[in-house]
């Protein structure tokens, strides 16, 4: 997806207006920008920096610090698999290996057809119904092989 720079500036300007008067507004702004564009476009950084009286480097430093903020759009679906200990104890590693093999991609990658992005996540708080996943923001528990396969059918359709 190509983003038009003038369009980015205008829409980011609106987002900045909506966050006026907030204490420490940068993270809420970045979340709003990512919600609007599916990622944080490079062109948004100078606009944000200018309004918040920060340097571009400072804004870039914040964007790059947090796992959530992406510089590129993700696929049409995002499958997040929990890699933390409680899920490991219930076979989460095997589920993750199967997902990577069946999708033919590794962590943080998107399938060539743009259908699915696979992300690791460290704990969804679903540790008593492990292994856990988040599919486009929807929580899924007890992800055994069969449930994974049906999730993959869903996101690849």
């Amino acid at each position, binding site marked *: 997806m190509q983003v038009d720079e003038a369009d980015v500036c205008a829409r980011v300007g609106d987002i900045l207006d909506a966050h006026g008067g907030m*204490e420490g507004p940068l993270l809420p702004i970045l979340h709003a920008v990512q919600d609007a564009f599916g990622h944080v476009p490079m062109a948004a950084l100078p606009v944000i920096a200018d309004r918040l009286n920060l340097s571009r480097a400072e804004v870039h430093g914040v964007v790059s610090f*947090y796992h959530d903020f992406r510089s590129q759009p993700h696929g049409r679906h995002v499958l997040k698999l929990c890699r933390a200990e409680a899920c490991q104890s219930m076979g989460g590693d095997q589920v993750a290996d199967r997902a990577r093999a069946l999708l033919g991609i590794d962590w943080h990658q998107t399938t060539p057809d743009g259908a699915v992005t696979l992300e690791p996540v460290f704990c969804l708080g679903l540790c008593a119904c492990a292994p856990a996943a988040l599919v486009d923001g929807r*929580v899924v528990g007890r992800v055994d092989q069969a449930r994974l396969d049906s999730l993959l059918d869903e996101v690849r359709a």
Partner: protein
Amino acid sequence: MKIHVPRDAAARAVGADQVAAAILAEADRRGIAVTLIRNGSRGMVWLEPLVEVTTPEGRMAFGPVAASDVAGLFDAGWQGHPLALGPTEELPWMMMQTRLTFARCGITDPLCLEDYRAHHGLKGLHRALTMTRDAMLQEVIDSGLRGRGGAGFPTGIKWKTVSDAPADQKYIICNADEGDSGTFADRMIMEGDPFTLIEGMTIAGLATGATRGYVYMRSEYPDAVQVMAEAVRIARDAGLLGPSVMGSGRAFDMDIRVGAGAYVCGEETSLLNSLEGKRGVVRAKPPLPALEGFFGKPTVVNNVISLASIPVIFDKGAAYYRDFGLGRSRGTIPLQIAGNVRRGGLFEIAFGMSLGQIVDDIAGGTATGRPVKAVQVGGPLGAYFPRALFDTPFCYEEFAGAEGLVGHAGIVVFDDSADMLKQARFAMEFCAIESCGKCTPCRIGAVRGMETVDRIARGDAAAIPLLRDLCATMKSGSLCALGGFTPYPVMSALTHFPEDFVPLHEAAE
């Protein structure tokens, strides 16, 4: 008829929404009037979705219910069905608990303020509004409440420090960045009884002179974020938050903020930086956040469960709360039993139960039916306990004495298929991924730690003393708990499960 189907993320993750939809559709088809309430979870996650039907004899539980079971349950008139469990309150899991902080969770409609009031809600705040600030601080000190995030610092002392600090603006910040694997108490209370947290933060504001608050939540908890944000709106509309809390003329208001997937932001100083809009890098202490916290102002940073325990302390009194517990660990602790267990979920009880009782009796052993090998307590920075240490009582000091930590009271059980060398490597890998980069023992040490564990895996016995040495450096040389506590899982794995570290095993022969 009145039916409860939880809206808790753990219930939704195993099909509660589909069950709720099926109940409404089936009732409609049969011409039965149903009032469906989406409550919080009772904490019996292995029985989710747990459906409850209100009868003259109390609420009757059914579980785990699948959407395909719904027609059959209506056919049976919601009694005598194979999924019928009997009265919810009389289930052994419920009967064995002491629910103080979670008293309402799973019972009420989380976003119904009337329901909250009808179940002791706001009684604590009412009482607090009749007290002086000094009396409020003393109440918290007398309760013996200690930080439930893991550090175990006395909450009342922290509040007093903030109260005594002169400033034009002070803050109450709730650390809801519950990133530890095996923990979900914060998520459950925020989804199941959010007004408790709002009431606790309001009391904290009144006691310390802080008029603004923030809840710093995780992006990994989308459901909890939505419920909390809605609860804050409802509380503000009802005059519980704002320029005059419940018409008292005293101000307190709060907002929800969402992190962006950085584990280290659960550390209070990096949380403050993140909230200010900076990289979530750890700050050196001193200055303490209580004196120079959010934007340099005196700030209370408390965990969700600490703050959510405040209303019951003010409702029933400090002595009532303090009389539960053992030694210097007072009150109750919501245990989160997770991983490879037959019965997983939230179990609130007075401090002092042994780890073995929790794992064998409460959790009922492993889900796979294989022997328990190791239990990790306190998240990714917590120690792995072998069966030999199962008599350790669940208390702050006692766990520290066993080279472990209570942390946020998450308990993750592994069966005998677990490879403890792999778990030790994962602890180092996690630290390397999540390190904020500020201090060298954590940033570099974790990477070297992974490499050193790999050397051991390849049969290099000389790497074992190196790993011990590295852990000692990380433990004493890191600024915060991420680098400082990563040695707990690593060293406990090495100490208690030497057979998984092959060269060590060979060296012993």
